[in-house]
């Protein structure tokens, strides 16, 4: 599998994990009780959080596979592409308001990843 296919898997799985986490955590409300047993009990009993962990594991294994074939100095910055995908999906699916400054930041990240690809 080539490195861009692995990056696509990492970004896709990371985005899916973060979207599920963000959606479920917003539904739960702000965390005020940080006791680990309460946190685990509250969060890991929820289907979206379990799915989120599964996607996180997929992302982790794809990242390991990427590190096997690509430079660290390429792999870590390239995964920042998830910022671009997450912002777009946060706007569409989570209905977050994305300010011009945030779009500008996302464009800079996208340009940065494009430079990595050259």
């Amino acid at each position, binding site marked *: 599998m080539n490195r861009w296919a692995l990056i696509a898997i990492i970004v896709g799985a990371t985005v899916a994990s973060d979207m599920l986490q963000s959606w479920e955590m917003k539904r739960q*409300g702000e965390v005020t009780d940080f006791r680990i047993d309460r946190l685990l009990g509250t969060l890991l009993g929820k289907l979206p959080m379990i799915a989120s962990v599964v996607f996180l594991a997929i992302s982790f294994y794809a990242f390991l596979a990427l*590190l*096997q074939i690509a430079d*660290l100095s390429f792999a870590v*910055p390239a995964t920042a592409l998830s910022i671009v995908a997450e912002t777009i999906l946060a706007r569409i699916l989570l209905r977050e308001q994305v*300010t011009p400054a945030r779009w*500008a930041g996302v464009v800079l*990240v996208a*340009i940065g990843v494009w430079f990595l690809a050259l």
Partner: protein
Amino acid sequence: MNSSAPGLQAKTRLFTCIVVLTNVLGNFALSWGMKHGAVMDGSAISFVRVVFDPWVLVGIAILAGWVLSRMALLSWADLSYVIPVTSVGFVLNAIMGYLFLNEQISPMRWLGTLFIVGGTVLVGLTSVNTTGVPTK
């Protein structure tokens, strides 16, 4: 974030350093392990075996520290503070690759990394809550 108290400022600086260092060292350990013996060939057993490689195991342990220290930092510091200051990790990862993994980093890759840091900082400077979600 109320950072006026000297104690809180010192704690914030300490945890920011921990978050950045654990991220960089954790990724470095994973990278070292995956290039020096750990193998993932697609078989089911290799997915189990790879996480018991000593370097990968060390990387996972350090990254667990990264997750916990980042969660702790986020419990008192703004996300809009945490994202930009920890994005320096992108550059430090590249420096680690250059210094210890003998990676050849082209000017274009350095430039791309700097663009990503700039973009991350810009994202971090924006409001952390744009949906008006009530907090308890």
